Structure formats: structure tokens, C-alpha cells
């Protein structure tokens, strides 16, 4: 039997998902042994033409990390979709937009203006901007174009499965690899399309070992302002912990280390909008019935949308900030 083929690709991402694959330690040797890796630009020397030369659906499984924010990302998303039998959105960028998706708080025009004109270290008196197509004596040069709105992978192509996390935790990757090997070796049925793999359907709070009591918050604090109690729920201590609105599966690592959950696993099962769910959760625990005091307590939430949507703005209900000229 020929080996099943595996592809890994990165679009708009930091490379942390690739590191997470390598962080599976000896498992990566097992992966390389079981699969024929046909595309992995981060770790091995392949060209786009190597993928184009494959038949449609020839790649058994592609783990696609990174958001879609340029014409090149989009082209590669379509190419990997066509060549893969199973396409998996791997990591928070592909699934929810993640940190690259924070660009949706501003506009492409504003980003270019800052980077090419206004930043203190820029000297560009002729206001030169990158051109997508440029003719030179040697021929025509082409650059991919950035988009104004960052998209998630499922928004632009059909996706079979989702593995969330920034990055997906190595233990979860190992579990997913074991499940895939089991399916391919023993003919087990595939999980239903759209299944979220390598994560818990419940909220991060379910994995959190901290003591929970009735939450009554009269003021929010920022992490550098307090030394949190090591045993008690961080939200009860006034720290904005995204746990109630975040999918579990990470083992609550941040919270165990005394750092509030930032929400990297995206919304839990059944929740579409992580920020709105966090607004709902906080509304339930603020301890006041006086409208003015409520306004004052809420004003103490630092960078509300940046905190609520740190990992999921492009996948949220509103998808981007409305930037009026």
C-alpha cells in the first residue's frame, strides 16, 4: 500500500503552529514514517509547482495554518483544497483569524500609510508604495496583494475539520495524529464533517483547577496591578479571564501559571461569537444595579474589543470594525 500523503502549509501566520508540530517530539518521526510528506514549506524544500503537479485529491490530509489576508494566501487555500481529500484548518489563524485578524480593526489604507509614510523610522519622501505588477527591462515583476479584510480559511474554501489553538497543544496534535493513523490503518469511519478535533467542546473553566465561588465584581484590574491569589478563580479577583467564553482542550495552562486565559482556543461548542459571549458572562457577574456605577465598572475593562476578540475577530459575527473615511 502506498503511504498516505500529508501536506502542511502556512498562510498569514507566525510559524508557531509549525513549531507546535515539531514540539510533538518523537511523534514527528512517526508522522514522517507513516506519511509521505509532499509539501511543507517551513521545514522541507518544496515549490508551489510540486503541489500543482499532483492530481486533485491526491494529498490525503493537509494541515493548513494561517489566516487568509492576501491574494497569495487565497490562491494557496484554493490549491490545497483542490489537491487534498481532507483539508483541516490547523490553529487559531486558519480557524478564527487570530492575531493577523486584528488587522480588521483598521483598514489596509491606514496600515500602508503608517508603514510606508508615518512610522518614525520611515524615510520615504516620494511616498513609494509596493506595486502588485511592475515592468522592468528583465520582464514583469509581480507581488501578491494584501486584502483590506482578513478572512478565516472556512470563509474562503470548504474545510473538513478544525483544530483550534494558538498554537494547538502538542499533546492534542499527538492525539489527532493517533486518531488519523487509526482511521487510515484500520478503516475506521471519519468523524462528521465540520468536527472540531483536538479540543474539548466545553469551556476552558471546566479544566481550570482554581476554586470557584459566587462571582461579584466591583472593579476590574489588569495583570500588572495585582499579585493574583494562586487558588481562587482569576475572574473573581477582577482579572479579565476569557475562560468562560473559550473552548477548553489546552489543559488551562495559562490559568495554572497565574495568567488569565486570553481565549486562543476560540469560542466553545455552540457559541458563534466569543466577544459577545464574554460580554454576556461579564454582565452576569458585575455586582451593581446602579446604571452610573455599572458604566464606571465597565469603563475599567481595558481595550474591550481587543481583549474579547484577540483571537477571533474575522470569525466573529461582525467580522471587522466599521472604518468610515
Amino acid at each position, binding site marked *: 500500500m502506498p503511504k498516505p500523503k500529508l501536506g502542511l502549509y502556512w498562510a498569514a501566520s507566525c510559524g508557531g503552529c509549525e513549531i507546535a508540530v515539531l514540539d510533538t517530539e518523537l511523534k514527528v518521526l512517526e508522522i514522517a514514517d507513516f506519511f509521505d510528506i509532499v509539501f511543507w514549506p517551513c521545514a522541507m524544500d518544496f515549490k508551489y509547482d510540486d503541489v500543482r503537479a499532483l492530481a486533485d485529491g491526491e494529498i490525503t490530509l493537509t494541515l493548513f495554518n494561517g489566516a487568509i489576508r492576501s491574494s497569495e494566501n487565497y490562491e494557496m487555500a484554493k490549491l490545497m483544497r483542490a489537491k487534498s481529500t481532507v483539508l483541516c484548518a490547523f490553529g487559531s489563524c486558519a480557524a478564527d483569524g487570530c492575531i493577523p485578524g486584528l488587522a480588521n480593526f483598521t483598514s489596509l489604507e491606514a496600515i500602508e500609510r503608517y508603514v510606508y509614510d508615518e512610522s518614525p523610522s520611515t524615510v520615504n519622501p516620494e511616498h513609494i508604495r509596493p506595486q502588485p505588477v511592475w515592468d522592468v527591462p528583465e520582464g514583469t515583476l509581480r507581488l501578491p496583494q494584501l486584502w*483590506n479584510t482578513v478572512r478565516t480559511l472556512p470563509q474562503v474554501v470548504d474545510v473538513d475539520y478544525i483544530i483550534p489553538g494558538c498554537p494547538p497543544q502538542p499533546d492534542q496534535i499527538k492525539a489527532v495524529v493517533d486518531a488519523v493513523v487509526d482511521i487510515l490503518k484500520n478503516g475506521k469511519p471519519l468523524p462528521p464533517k465540520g468536527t472540531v478535533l483536538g479540543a474539548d467542546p466545553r469551556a476552558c473553566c471546566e479544566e481550570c483547577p482554581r476554586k470557584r465561588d459566587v462571582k461579584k465584581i466591583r472593579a476590574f484590574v489588569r495583570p500588572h496591578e495585582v499579585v493574583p491569589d494562586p487558588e481562587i478563580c482569576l475572574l473573581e479577583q477582577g482579572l479579565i479571564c476569557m475562560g468562560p467564553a473559550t473552548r477548553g482542550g489546552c489543559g488551562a495552562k495559562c490559568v495554572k501559571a497565574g495568567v488569565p486565559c486570553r481565549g486562543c482556543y476560540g469560542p466553545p461548542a455552540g457559541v458563534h461569537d466569543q466577544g459577545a459571549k464574554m460580554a454576556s458572562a*461579564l454582565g452576569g457577574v458585575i455586582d451593581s*444595579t446602579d446604571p452610573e456605577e455599572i458604566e464606571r465598572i465597565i469603563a475599567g475593562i481595558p481595550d474591550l474589543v481587543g481583549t474579547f476578540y484577540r483571537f477571533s475577530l474575522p470569525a466573529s459575527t461582525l467580522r471587522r470594525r466599521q472604518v468610515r473615511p
Partner: protein
Amino acid sequence: MSFEPNLVGFLCNWCSYTGADLAGTARIKYPPNLKVIRVMCSGRVDPNFILEALAHGADGVLVCGCHPGDCHYVEGNYKCQRRLPITRMLLGEMGIDPRRVRLEWVSASEGVRFGQVVSEFTEEIRSLGPLALQEWAFDAAAADAQLAHQGGDHA
């Protein structure tokens, strides 16, 4: 054609929905722009509902519940009273005018008041104009056209 606001109203079963009923049986005139959704309590109105309404064509969302102290479930309206300001702040930071979401207390006997609230809210949203979300849907045809235009490696 003049702009007619498309409004969604979440009305609590015990006070405000009954208040709206009273407005109807008392033949009180108010604009027909509000599409009413009955919920058991204003505390049931998840901020998700409000964002979903705005993302799918509503120009404004009105939430009505029992007056403070009158909640059938004792404190549901207090939860709503805290969720709505957070939702409005969230909308403001997302570039959407927070006036598009309004919370009002309407009791079962306040049919006249319900009519006034709907009239005022309709006029306010009419003055704000339609909420047309930028680049909400992914335009595959435009993205494909961009690829084709670039040609070369990216065709």
C-alpha cells in the same frame, strides 16, 4: 425612496410584550418598523442575539424588560442592564453607533409608553441612516478577479 429602518425588538414575556399587546388593543398608533421577538426575560437577551440581528440586516435593536425591581425572575432585568452597556461599548469600538441598541423598561400597563418608545427609536435610527456593514460577506468573484488580474505566479 426614503429609508425605512429595519428594527428588531426583544420584548420580555411578562411586562413589555404584554405592554405591546396593550398598545395594540388600545389602538395606539406607532410606526410598523419594529419586528418583535418575544423572550421570556430581558435577561435571556444574549449580546449574541443583538450582534446577529445587526449583522443580518437590522438597523437597530430595541430591548424591553420589566422595570427594575419588577422582574418576574427577580434579577433577570438587572443582568440585562449590565449586558447592554457592555454590548453598546463593544459596538462603539467596532465602529457602530451605540445608539443603534437601546434598552427601555416597559411595564404591562404602559401601552402608550411602548408606542412612544418605538416612535422615538424609529426616528432616531431613521436619522442615523441604514447600517451597511462593510465587507461582511466574502466576495469570491472579486478575489478570483484579483488573482486573474495579477496573472504570473498567482494565476
